[in-house]
């Protein structure tokens, strides 16, 4: 029962976010960049401006709709890169051990020691601003937790009898990692990947704020949120709605991840 609720709500919210991401331009009332009108600056939500307007008098509803594209692309894209890197390094390090494990551990410590935003900044400085480089920069800098967790899982799983049995049956290392280790480390990895997505959406905001991500007039949820800081007491709707959008997306992804993990785990399924 609980599983179905998780999946249904998470799936619904995620679908909503993705729907907005794809069809946002059609849902928007006005152009999010061009339709600035200082006469309408900082109007509170009304029938005409559902989410109110910002300092430049732009319709926040329209900007939230358009912003979904950038925020979701960066969030999902960079989390995919993070998860791929973290899992590959973590599982191989935990399974093989030895010098490779030492190397990966050193690298993970390095990544944890350097603030990831600073590191992303450096990468952005090399790649230049833009959506793709933003995704790569955030994707290369946030894999250390995934790596730590999947390494710990792999360490625990590799000593299990079924991994030894696979070896005795003649399985090669890569096959063991894919069929025996990875499926048994997937639960926590999914949770971390979906949890981290909120973080990357916000990190995109920080980089955009510093002028290295999405250039200012283009809307993204993160940049809208950082622009709204000064008016949080006088015009809270400026930060409320992009914040809600991020909240709903992250909540949906987390619930979906949770539900997926339960479905993927045969032990939590009911006996047929």
């Amino acid at each position, binding site marked *: 029962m609980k599983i179905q609720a998780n999946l249904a709500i998470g799936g619904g919210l995620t679908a909503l976010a993705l729907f907005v991401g794809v069809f946002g331009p059609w849902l928007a009332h006005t152009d999010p960049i061009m339709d600035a009108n200082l006469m309408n600056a900082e109007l509170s939500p009304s029938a005409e401006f559902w989410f109110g307007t910002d300092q430049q008098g732009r319709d926040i509803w329209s900007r939230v709709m358009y912003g979904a594209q950038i925020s979701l692309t960066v969030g999902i894209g960079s989390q995919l890169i993070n998860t791929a890197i973290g899992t590959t390094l973590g599982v191989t390090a935990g399974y093989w051990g030895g010098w490779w494990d030492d190397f990966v551990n050193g690298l993970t410590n390095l990544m944890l020691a350097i603030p990831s935003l600073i590191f992303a900044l450096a990468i952005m400085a090399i790649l230049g601003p833009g959506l793709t480089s933003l995704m790569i920069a955030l994707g290369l800098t946030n894999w250390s937790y995934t790596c730590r967790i999947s390494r710990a899982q792999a360490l625990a799983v590799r000593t299990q009898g079924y991994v030894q049995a696979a070896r005795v*049956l*003649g399985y090669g290392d890569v*096959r063991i990692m894919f069929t025996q280790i990875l499926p048994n480390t997937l639960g926590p990895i999914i949770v971390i990947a979906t949890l981290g997505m909120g973080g990357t959406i916000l990190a995109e905001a920080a980089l955009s704020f510093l002028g290295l991500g999405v250039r200012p007039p283009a809307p993204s949820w993160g940049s809208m949120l950082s622009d709204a800081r000064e008016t949080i007491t006088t015009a809270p709707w400026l930060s409320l709605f992009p914040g809600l959008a991020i909240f709903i997306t992250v909540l949906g992804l987390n619930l979906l991840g949770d539900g997926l993990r339960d479905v*993927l*785990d045969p032990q939590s399924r009911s006996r047929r």
Partner: protein
Amino acid sequence: MADTDLLAIEDLAVHFPVGGGMFSQPQMLRAVDGVSLRIRPGESLGLVGESGCGKSTLALSILGLVDPTRGRVVVDGTAVGTDTDRLAVARTVQMVFQDPYASLNPRQTVRRTLAAPLRLHGITNSGEVADRVAEMLRQVGLRPDQADLYPHEFSGGQRQRIGIARALILKPKLVICDEPVSALDVSIRAQIINLLLELQAEMGLSYLMISHDLGVVEHMSDKVAVMYLGRIVETGGWREIFERPRHPYTRALIAAIPDPLTRALGREKAHGEVPSPLNPPPGCTFNPRCPHAIDKCRASPPVLSPIEEGHLVSCWRAEELSTVRA
């Protein structure tokens, strides 16, 4: 080596470096230190010893997962090591694991657990794979329609049957059973032991039964080898070992079998703990725990030598002790 031996272990030693850093030399752990064993087709050898005596390392070297430091392991005419073709070894030697709860992948159905090895070994016809899986399940006493269940839907005894099915699906000649019943309820043990015996007769298997429990080995073995700190201290037919044990360690193990009626050996206990294999005592490695130790035992190590036909003992006092009823 005689042509008839399925497994021939000759003077096998496996040493591991332990510890050691930038400034210190690693110590050598002599996990297995000069072991020779033979198993003929259809025969069962019981290998007995306390934990840490090298039984598992011995099993790993038979499976070709550990390289010998000295000596060699010959399985079905081929010397095995980590560079041997793993698939070929897998088709000859398989293993049944101790803990049926940890030895089955919780995310694979029984069918996948049994079918994947077949496919890996080149049986790709899905009809044939399904037939062999169903046949194997029947042989271990499960219903073929249980193939699509996950491990957690089975009891411990049923899980061990699946573990046995997995070991036998490739039709190996030698099966290493590593404590196959010690994790099971006492009421289930006899069933699994009987199943292993039936399968042995049906498929002509040879077993290497690894156990710390002589009571289990007694039911399953033609020959018994008793291992202590990486060496064989006594070996012989099960009748010799159980009726005329010579080594004080074997006698202590037999005395430890809970059986109120028949054991005449009384309370011949081994006291103390197993010494560290990193720093074994001089002379006979059993001397600190032996109730019969004399100075000679502390000075020089005894050699495994025949005391009667097919019965070898490594003890300086084997001759005298045979008459001692402690």
